[in-house]
Structure formats: C-alpha cells, structure tokens
C-alpha cells in the first residue's frame, strides 16, 4: 500500500544501484535493517566469546520475543500516527491482576483470562479517550500510564506475589523441542500480524488511516473504529506480554513492567515504522526488537553497568526517528 502511494526513486544509475533503486521502499528498509542486524551479530561475536553460544542466542530470542509481542500491537498504533505510552503500566496492572487471581483461585485459566481481558479493556479505554473524547493520543495514554500506575500500587499495597504453578511458568520460561516457548508465540503472532496488516481489509485500512485520515474517511473507512481497534490490540498484546513476563519472573510487584515502555517504542521505531503514520511493517518491528535486545545483551556481556541501558535506549530512539526523517525528507517535504 505504502509502496504504491510513493513513487520510487528515478533510476538514472546502472548496475546494482539501479537494482537497489528498483526495490520497493519497504523492502529496502527491511534489507537495510537486516544488514544492521548482521553487522551487530558479527561485532558482538568478535567482542565476546560468550555471545555465539546456544544458551545466549536462545536467551536473546526469549527476551526479543517478549519485546516483539509488546511492540507488535504498538506497531499498529504507530502506523495510525498515534502512540501508546501506557503499555508498560498496562503490563504491570495486568500481571498483578493475573498473579493475584492465580494465587487466589489456584486456576491458571482464570488468571490468564483476567490478564488478557484487563489488557484489552485498558486498550479500549485508550481508544475511546482518543476517538470519542478527542484527547491527543500521547496525552491520553500518558494520563492512562499514571492512572494505571496508581491503581496497581493501590491494588498491590507494596507487596510481592511469587511462586506460580509450573504449568503457568512454562509460558515464560519453558522449552519445547529445545526452543523457548515465547519464541513460538513470537512466530505465531508475527505470522498473524503480517497477514493481518498486509492481507486483510482492516489491516490496509489501518495503513490508510495513518497515511491520511481525512482521505481514509472520505473513502469510507470507519476511522474511529479502526483507531479503537489498534489501541485495543495494543492493550491486548500488553495483556499477553504481562502473562509471559510474569511467568518468566515468577513474581509480581507493582512496578513489574513499567520499564518496558521505552524499549517497546524503540523496537517499533528501529524497525522503521514512521511516527507520522502509514509507513512500517511487522517484519521491521521484529528486526527492531532483535537489534535492541542484541544491543542490551551485548552491554551485559561486556559487563557495562546496567544503569547505562536507559541512556542507550533513549539515544537509540532519537537516532531511529532522526534517520527515519532523513530518509523520508525527499518524499514528504
């Protein structure tokens, strides 16, 4: 969709350059990011012997899976030129609710349903605040962040819940055929996300809303309900991520997922999804999640103080948007 909207570069060059220019923008962008990923892997394996070991790679994949699940919903939101700053706080509340219910009732199913539906409901609330009350997305979800923060704290009263049944913990820390369970979930949701965004009517309408909401409205797209949809999906994915996170940590406290917001946004932006809407892909977000996880993993392996991680993530966010602007300047302005 986005490719057909934007004319590709004029091919005055010959040879490989012409071939590169003939590729659609979205493929160029994915190819560039794959190259960056490969270079990063190469550098890390040169820098640390511990990097290219099965256990470390599986560890990276497991962490990237959590980040991707959170970032995939966020990708749809950012495709509509919106933003969801509440995903981390959503993870916190959903995880604490699920934890309490699993402990209280002894039923994993009830906890899972509670975590997922709390995530979904928070997402719908975001969507309604943005479409019906017409609060700008970043303000609405930012307010939601702090509301959830307080509710979670009130709910938990500073306590920690830990020790869950093994069957539940398997979602986050289990293996199947030697591969961590979250990685399968990542694969499944990547597939669903790709098909949904690229091959369904609703997916294409989401791109259209992001590219030009007015034009989308005039061509019959129900803009408001698509917007509610993307925030609902983002919330539901936060609910799912909360379960995986909870299962992996095997304990819940009030601030369990709050540090996940910035990395999730970073993964989407590194993946080439534009903050201005209408441009981006799930595949890009997957690569973004992998790149960010590798950077943080590399810092761990090189024994760099973990306090530097938010600094690096912050710088990466800004750089990603900066490069995105550079490459799009020719098209938009």
């Amino acid at each position, binding site marked *: 969709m986005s490719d057909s909207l934007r004319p590709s570069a004029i091919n005055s060059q010959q040879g490989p350059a012409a071939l590169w220019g003939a590729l659609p923008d979205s493929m160029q962008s994915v190819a560039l990011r794959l190259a960056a990923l490969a270079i990063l892997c190469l550098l890390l394996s040169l820098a640390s012997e511990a990097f290219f070991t099965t256990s470390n790679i599986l560890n990276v994949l497991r962490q990237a899976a959590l980040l991707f699940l959170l970032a995939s919903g966020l990708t749809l939101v950012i495709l509509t030129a919106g*933003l969801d*700053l509440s995903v981390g706080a959503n993870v916190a509340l959903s995880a604490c609710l699920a934890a309490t219910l699993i402990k209280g009732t002894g039923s994993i199913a009830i906890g899972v349903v509670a975590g997922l539906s709390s995530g979904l409901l928070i997402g719908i609330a975001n969507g309604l*605040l943005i479409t019906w*009350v*017409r*609060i*700008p997305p*970043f*303000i*609405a979800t*930012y*307010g*939601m962040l*702090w*509301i*959830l*923060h*307080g*509710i979670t*704290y*009130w709910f938990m009263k500073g306590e920690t819940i830990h020790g869950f049944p093994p069957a539940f913990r398997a979602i986050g820390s289990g293996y199947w055929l030697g591969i961590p369970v979250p990685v399968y979930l990542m694969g499944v949701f990547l597939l669903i996300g790709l098909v949904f965004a690229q091959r369904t009517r609703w997916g294409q309408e989401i791109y259209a809303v992001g590219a030009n909401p007015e034009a989308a409205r005039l061509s019959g797209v129900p803009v408001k309900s698509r917007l509610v949809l993307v925030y609902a999906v983002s919330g539901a994915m936060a609910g799912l991520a909360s379960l995986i996170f909870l299962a992996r940590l095997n304990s819940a406290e*009030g601030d369990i997922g709050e540090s996940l917001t*910035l990395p999730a*946004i970073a993964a989407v*932006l590194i993946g080439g999804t534009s*903050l201005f809407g209408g441009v981006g892909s799930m595949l890009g977000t997957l690569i973004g999640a992998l790149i960010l996880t590798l950077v943080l993993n590399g810092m761990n392996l090189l024994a760099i*103080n973990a*306090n*530097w*991680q*938010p*600094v*690096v*993530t*912050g*710088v990466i*966010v*800004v750089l990603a*948007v*900066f490069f995105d*602007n550079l490459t799009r300047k020719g098209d938009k302005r």
Partner: protein
Amino acid sequence: MAEPLLNLSAGADTWLRRVRTSGSSSGALMTLIGLCVVFSWITDTFLTSANLVNIATQSTVLLLIALPMTLIIMTEGLDLSIGAVLTVTNVVLAMVAVQTGGVWWALLAALSVGAVFGLVNGSLVARLGIPPFVATLGTLGVAQGLALVLTDGQSVVGIPESVQYFYSGTLAGVPLPLWIAALTYLVFHGVLYHTRFGAYIFALGGNREALSLAGVRTQVYWIAVYIVGGVMAGLAALVLTARISSGHPTAALGMEFDAIAAVALGGTSFEKGKGWLLGTLLGVLAVGVMRNGLNQVGVNSAVQVSAIGFLVIFALMIDAYRGRRA
C-alpha cells in the same frame, strides 16, 4: 520587519483577550475551590495557616517546572524529560555542593546541565523535526540513566547549610521558596506578555508558518523555549535539593506528570497554541492541594498520581467539549 511584528503582538493580544474572556482556567479555579472545601470538611488539619503556607512552599518546585512547561505546550510541544532532568540536576547540584561546600558553583552546574538538556531537546524538535513527545521521551531515558550512573543508585548526603537555606530560610517573614516562586512567576509573566519573545511563543503554537514568513528565525526561539525548560529544571533543583537535603537518583522522576497536569488543569490547550500563566499557577495549586489533602487522609503518593490522572482526563474532556462547541 516592523509591521509584521506589530501584527504578531496584536495577534497575541487578541488571543489573550479570547482566552481570558472564555474563562479557560475557570476549571482550575473551580477544582481548586472544590478540593479546598472537601479537604477542609473531611480533615481538621487542612485549613490551618501553617498547612496553607506549607502547600504553597511545597508547590514551588512544581511551579518552577510548570511555568516553562506552559510555554513548551503553547508551542504545541511537550517535555516529558523535565522530571528526569530535574532529577539529574538535583544529583549534580548535590554532588557539587558537597564537594565545594557552597551553593553558587553547584547552582551554576545544575543550570548548565539543565540548559544542555534543553538545548538537546530543542534541537531535536526544532532542527531535526522529531515529534516532541518522542524526542523528550528519549532524553528522559538518558537523564534517568545518567542520574543512576552518577550516583550508582545511592543518595548524595551532607548537603551544606547554604543550600538548605533556600527551603528553610525566610525573608521579611516569608519563606524563601515563596519569594523565588513569586519572582519567577513575575518574570515569566513579563516575558510572555510584554516582550517580543513572548509574542513569538504565541505565534509558534498558533501560526508558525506566518512567523517564519515574517522573517523571524523561528528555530532559535523554538529551541530557546526548551532551553528555558532545562534551565528552570536546574533552578527547581536548588529548591528541591534544599527541601530533601540530599541528591537522589529518583528524586523527581514522574514529576513531569504533575507539571503537565497543572498546565492542563490551567486550561492551556495541547493543540491550539493557546494558554496562560495564571491558569498554570491555579493548576499548580490544585495539584498541590490535592496531594497535600490526600496525604492527610493517608493516601499513598503513587495512588495520588492516579487521582491526578483522572482529574486531568476530566479537565481535557471539558476542554475537548468546549473546543467542539466553539
């Protein structure tokens, strides 16, 4: 050059009249009165002169960052990093004060660190065209991490008397923070309503295109607004450090929300480039009263944030409703 400038300030005046007559901050005033009535009713300790002075004094730090936040939001911007920058300047100020045993070098260091963060924010937004909430979310991460790295997660203690004086001292019987708050408010008022820079701020939010067509170097003023935010965070760090007698790596994390809440309650709009300072002052007091009252009822500070969040959403709903009606 002279004529477009005249038009611009005329535009600002018209805006002002509209904002004043539309009663944008009546919401903040009503919230403030409502909260005062409720808390005086349910607690015996709220409506005492000591407590009221206490609220005003405690609100100083918030006012010092809410005022520049008003200007930033008026340019259709946002500074999510201001709480984290306040935190890192608190740490820097505390460390330098402990080293030198005095206040002035420490204040200078805090102001400079704040200015650098403001310059970075402003350049990212104005020069590189990065949306403000993402640019400042990035610098939030940077500032937060730096505060942790500088202190290694520990508190900085042993703050000299000369720093603490800025919270506990009095001048002519009035607490020093109140003097700082009043002076700062007057300076902001003067700059926003009576200088060219002030008129440009109105235009940056309301009509940026016209401003640059009028030959004004828009980017310079746009960046300057963010630098003001950073410098004010440095000044607020002085009062904050004096108040908590330490430098702490999480001292003011999240305080940007109180500031944004105060500005929103004060009736400054996030989309139309209009706002006014008195509204922000009332908003700051409303947030201050809310926190003080909830403290007295025994509500945890994290839960207070939730209540403020609901209050802001409510204020924005009214704002949106009014915008639709207008």
